[in-house]
């Protein structure tokens, strides 16, 4: 009887002890990574490449779950709501979460996530249609300033629109943005000369240029290694740096030891050559930032984006 009582009384402590052991053993079961976009896109590709290597490193299977909808809002919301136990992670393209947070009534905020690493740095760019009369920024701007509101720029997604608006604002042009539901549709419209310009990421460079579309410039700090012929906006005198960076996040509140285990594993795979080759094959510019570097980068970027969002809020919401 006494021993039973003793066992009962000590049960909570025993349970606590076992859970501590479990945390040290993390992970003991499959992990899932939520991707708020459909399969096959850039964000999904990054998630799958990373899931593969990270799963090997941690010794557990990592499943990628696509949870698309409402421009990424549904999936990002679900990541924020999941248990912070290390078994549900998320990969999305920053600044999708930031733009959504400040343009819609979302239930997540920037602080809902623990940003563990970033894997790429893909600048946005502006491309002109094959029939256009301009192929440099200077020619484009003088053409556009003479015809306020007549230039039509296509975009697909919140960042695409933001970039288009910032581009117009800084080059002092009035242009008309038009939304497309995906990168494919947008490219079709540009290459068919139905629109004048497209605001999209550097990932679209090859198919657009392959069909005689013209790259006007990238919103990058310096020229991209992959595309050394395309100038940056900066070197053409336009101060605009904007891009997407796929981040691996967990919901805020991870236990310290699990966070440590994840960060160590991420650092370990960050120099894996097979993984880097996968990125290169997929035309995604690889750039690894560990947990402290990524937070620094995001903070700086938030400060750049915030005024652009505020200045164009009415355009973003009701254009």
């Amino acid at each position, binding site marked *: 009887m006494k021993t039973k009582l003793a066992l009962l009384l000590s049960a909570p402590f025993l349970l606590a002890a076992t859970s501590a052991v479990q945390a040290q053993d993390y992970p003991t079961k499959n992990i899932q990574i939520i991707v708020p976009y459909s399969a096959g*896109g850039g964000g999904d590709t990054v998630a799958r490449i990373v899931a593969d290597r990270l799963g090997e490193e941690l010794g557990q299977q990592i499943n990628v*779950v*696509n949870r*698309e909808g409402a421009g990424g809002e*549904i999936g990002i919301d679900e990541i924020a709501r999941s248990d912070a136990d290390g078994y549900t992670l998320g990969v999305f393209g920053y600044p999708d979460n930031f733009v959504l947070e400040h343009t819609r009534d979302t239930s997540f905020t920037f602080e809902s996530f623990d940003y563990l690493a970033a894997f790429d740095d893909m600048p946005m760019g502006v491309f002109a249609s094959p029939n256009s009369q301009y192929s440099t920024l200077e020619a484009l701007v003088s053409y556009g300033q003479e015809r306020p509101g*007549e230039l039509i720029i296509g975009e697909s997604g919140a960042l695409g629109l933001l970039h288009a608006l910032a581009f117009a604002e800084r080059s002092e042009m009035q242009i008309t943005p038009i939304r497309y539901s995906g990168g*494919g549709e947008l490219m*079709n419209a540009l290459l068919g000369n139905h*629109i004048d310009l497209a605001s999209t990421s550097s990932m679209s460079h090859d198919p657009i240029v392959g069909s005689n579309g013209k790259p006007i410039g990238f919103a990058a700090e310096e020229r991209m290694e992959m595309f050394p012929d395309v100038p940056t906006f900066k070197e053409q005198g336009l101060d605009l740096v904007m891009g997407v960076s796929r981040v691996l996040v967990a919901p805020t509140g991870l236990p310290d030891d699990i966070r440590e285990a994840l960060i160590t594993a991420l650092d370990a795979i960050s120099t894996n050559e097979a993984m880097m080759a996968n990125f290169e094959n*997929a035309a995604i510019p690889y750039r690894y930032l560990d947990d402290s570097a990524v937070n620094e980068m995001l903070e700086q970027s938030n400060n750049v984006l915030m005024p652009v969002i505020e200045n164009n809020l009415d355009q973003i919401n009701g254009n």
Partner: protein
Amino acid sequence: MDIVSILLNLFTPSVFLVVFAGVLVGIVVGAIPGLNGAIGISLLLPLTFTMEPQTGLLLLGGIYMGGMYGGSITAILINVPGDVVAAPVAMEGYPLTQQGRAKEALYYSIFSSMFGGFIGVLVLILFTPPLARFALQFGPAEMFFVSLSGLIIVGALSGSVLKAAFAVLLGLFISTVGVDLITGSERFTFDNIDLRSGISVVPVVLGLFCFAEMFLNIGKKPGEQVQYRDQTISRMTVVKDILKQRFLVWKSGLIGTVVGLLPGVGTTLAVFMSYGDAKRVSRRNIPFEQGNPDGIIAAESANNATVGSSMVPLLALGVPGSPTSAIIAGALVIHGIVLGPSLFVSRPDIAFTFLYGMLLTVVAMTIIGAVGIKYFSYILKIKMEYIVPTVLVFALFGAYSLRNSLFDVFIAILLGIVGAIFKKIHVPLAPIIIGVVLGPLIETNLARAMRIASARNMPLWEYLMATPLSKGLVALVVIMLIVVIRMRHKEKVAAKGVKNA
């Protein structure tokens, strides 16, 4: 890249194995309500990362091809289309099953799929560059008119015009729920995050066609169910009959090919267009929706033809023409293959092996389908009380798996109840689907046209009619309207004649 080395690349055991496996997976996911080729492809996508690019691509291509066919099996046998594109097949195939001619319907479906598949892939092999340029001609104005002509198809389906109009309006209404793509404004969302992302077509189809059918079966006494007989028919009889309708096969295949080219318009429109057209031209003395094989021939040759053609803009321009080909594009990119005009120059080995390999997927589909039909029709020997719960489980799973969303499951069940009621009061269900698919296309393209017209300082009508292509499409819309009205009129006269006699 000469033909011999392409063949050498293709005729290896591993390629054969992969193609057959892909097609088989495609047929299975296609037949399961709610799952379709796109889902099958995203499931097996990671598997291809470790394969040779052309082998991996053919695996995905096989799933795509098989998935287009698979949906018709359950459509014919238990009146549950496995996929949107099989809805017209259910309308003609299930009545045949009720008449004890399930095998015949299945043969029509597989051999029409084969002809359609070959047409689409041959077009892909022979005409990719010019067709890709043609597809680029379609801007907002042209897309608007194409989608509009799709809506007119509704008038050609049988039943009361008023009820069909109600159904299509309901479909259009469903499509407005969510964040409007062009303006970003929220419509009928009631601050609900799930409603904000809109109601997607898969749960709608599952609800209306699958849940509704199963709900109607619940509570039936065993005796009330159809007593299935299994009439034997030889494959050659069916093939010969299809060949007699070769004009219909070609036309449906070409409708599938052309509409399949257009990004975003999709297979659904192509299938309903050729089905509506078959109804107009059929010379058989069998009314539609009572088991006219021409409906199956048209729908199945059209949907398998879109497989090849939706890859035309993908391979030639890097622009995916359908959700499925978008995922295939993702797989190509991971293999470091740059899509677009340079593909045929930089990696001809992969491009041509894939193109010719797609012919192999058609062959594999035909073999699996033609041999499997004997086994598929065993489904009919299963008692309805086992089929209903099984199908419901798969359908629940299918509704959930599309976006991993319980909301979609809820929508599917709700529309299942609505669909069951509509079936009782004879409101046709197909127009609802047409409305859901075409509503956003018509609306967003008109909105884009308006914005472009105002930016270019021209009246909207002038922009809409600016190109010869759009003028031609306007003519097409008008002609279709006249044809449908005349067809309706004839039916009315015929019905009166029957009454008087």
